[in-house]
């Protein structure tokens, strides 16, 4: 017994010691991706609705998938044949990133301290806020959280949701009676059956629940109040600043295009007659966007042409053209009252 446990301990120690995360060098990842001819990006082991799903023909689709494709398009000019979506479980994403099996993790991953430091991941500028909202029945005719005062809230016990609700109530001067449930599924089912006035979740999850489990999705609305929000970003290995730059500027291309009204439909016109010098540069009408990143000058044009701008990606996958109908809310551009903004193209 003692021999065995010593052996196991020694084995475990060896494995742990050897697992020091690989450290990427500047420009290393882009070089490797170009050599391989494909970007290795995350999918899901199954389906994560809205972000990574599989269509009838077995092709991936979803918001996170489209971001993978945008990055791949920026590098190769097209994503077809140049993006390798690897089915990845939640537990697997960090080891797979560190071992070099993945070039990017785009998997609704929140930017946390331990991820940033202990597992030495590098986050790009957040591309989305996972915002916690209330969902209520439409026939209650309420428009904000305060109107819920005195109502009931179906909640699974022991999650952070309860804390968010209590904080928001205290700050905004209203009170909800919590109806606790053991499991999330139970709380959701109880809400849909009319047991409570409200439930709370990340707005995408609310949209999914409403679209997929409610008998009539139109009976429910998501209130605009944000109870809490987690920034979600593209994750890379630490150390390769060039790779982080590419992720950040691809995001900026998507947001800047939205801000300037450049879509996949009008991008050719826009390139021919750029409304501003910045758009001209973004679409490669005037040079300067490619070389500093190690890409071609027209990468921005290619991305918008094939994947669309940020709002097109949103609407198609989780917004109004999808079954989930999630509002932009806090994820709108700053000029529309949200918190997303492109970096400055000078």
């Amino acid at each position: 017994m003692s021999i065995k446990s010593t052996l196991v301990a020694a084995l475990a120690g060896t494995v742990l010691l050897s697992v020091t995360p690989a450290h990427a060098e500047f420009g290393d990842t882009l070089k490797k991706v170009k050599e391989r001819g494909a970007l290795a990006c995350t999918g899901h082991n199954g389906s994560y609705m809205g972000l990574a799903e599989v269509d009838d023909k077995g092709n991936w689709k979803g918001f996170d998938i489209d971001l993978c494709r945008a990055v791949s398009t920026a590098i190769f000019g097209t994503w077809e044949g140049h993006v390798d979506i690897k089915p990845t479980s939640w537990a697997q994403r960090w080891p797979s990133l560190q071992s070099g099996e993945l070039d990017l993790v785009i998997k609704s991953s929140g930017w946390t301290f331990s991820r940033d430091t202990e597992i030495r991941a590098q986050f790009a500028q957040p591309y989305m806020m996972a915002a916690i909202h209330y969902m209520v029945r439409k026939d209650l005719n309420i428009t904000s959280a305060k109107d819920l005062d005195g109502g009931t809230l179906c909640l699974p016990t022991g999650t952070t949701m309860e804390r968010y609700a209590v904080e928001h109530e205290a700050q905004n001067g209203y009170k909800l009676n919590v109806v606790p449930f053991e499991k999330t599924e139970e709380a959701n089912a109880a809400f849909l059956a009319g047991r409570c006035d409200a439930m709370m979740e990340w707005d995408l999850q609310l949209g999914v629940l409403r679209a997929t489990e409610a008998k009539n999705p139109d009976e429910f609305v998501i209130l605009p109040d944000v109870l809490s929000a987690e920034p979600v970003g593209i994750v890379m290995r630490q150390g390769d600043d060039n790779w982080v730059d590419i992720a950040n500027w691809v995001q900026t291309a998507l947001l800047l295009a939205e801000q300037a009204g450049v879509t996949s439909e009008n991008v050719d016109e826009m390139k021919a007659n750029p409304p501003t010098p910045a758009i001209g540069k973004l679409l490669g009408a005037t040079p300067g966007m490619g070389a500093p990143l190690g890409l071609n000058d027209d990468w921005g044009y290619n991305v918008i042409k094939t994947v669309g701008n940020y709002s097109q990606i949103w609407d198609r996958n989780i917004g109004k053209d999808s079954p989930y109908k999630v509002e932009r809310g806090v994820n709108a551009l700053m000029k529309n009252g949200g918190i997303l903004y492109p970096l400055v193209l000078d």
Partner: protein
Amino acid sequence: MTTVSDVNTHPQPLNTGFQPDGLGARLRRRYFRTPGNAMISLVGMAALLYLVYHALDWAVLKAVWASPDGTSAVCRDIAGACWAVIQQRWRIIIFGLFPYDEQWRSMLACIAMVATIVLSCLPWFWKPLRLSTLWCAGFITFYVLMRGGLFGMRVVMPADWGGLTLTVFFYAAGVLIGMPMAVALALLRRSEMPLVSRMTGALIDGVRSLPLITILFTAALIFPFVLPDWLQGDKIWRVIIGFALFFAAYQAEIIRSGIQSIPVGQEEAAKALGLSYWHRTGRIILPQAFRNALPPTINQLVITFKETSLIVIIGFFDILASGNAAYGTGEWSFAYFEVYIFVALVYFVFVFSLSRYGAYLERRMRFGQH
């Protein structure tokens, strides 16, 4: 219901003058012997009928079988099962993420692998040469079809394999590699050299004391940090070898129990006749050991088949993950129950066939023993 007294306490059926005649009489004797008995039978049958009726009502009578337009609109406001989800999404369940236009390859490969398994269950193939030829042919066919790159077929890397095909391949490969390993471990553990037997024992107990998921996780994700590039191979092979090792550790103990149930005299007699170790082991010990250990072996094979679903945690698109992907879209997400029933049926077909084959083997092997 048969009462306890007329079966268990009398090893020989009493001659009561009762004629074992028609169905009616038999039913009467078994289920309606006394009024109390009849009551229980009636209530039980009514409950059963009720359940069966409701299940049938849901699964067949009120079910929707196909979707004419490819959407789930046809399943709105129905009280029965929505089998249209299977009609629309079965390809994902069976083939996973395999490229749509190439799925015939996955289909043929799956058939080839299942055929190999079925054929190797036939006694005619139970010769080392025939069996190894069969399995080599089966695996090469499978691998060429799936991976492609030959005869103008497009290359599809194992990361894109999925669905039932992947589950079957994973299982077959794991058992095929694991079974010889198990025999070797069982024999080594019984070695007369203390060092060898202790080390084998430590290995078996060590592997058995780790959860399968840890082994799979390590094989898939930790080894790339530890092993040099040339030794890594594809992720799928590392995982299959980890899976085989886990299977072998359990199966080795089953085989050892089979070996130890053979009277010692047999081996001593064989030694006295001057038979070599390999003769004794191959001709006398192992055949009997396998026969004795058949029920737990089938048990282990069944468990192992179901354990393949754990590979989902390291990002393989096995039948369970692809089932999840099949209903995991806004269009079909309400139909998860139907998808899981379908997946359960697939598992059932495999596991039940395996159990029935085990029963057949037992009958066959007992032949001539008594």
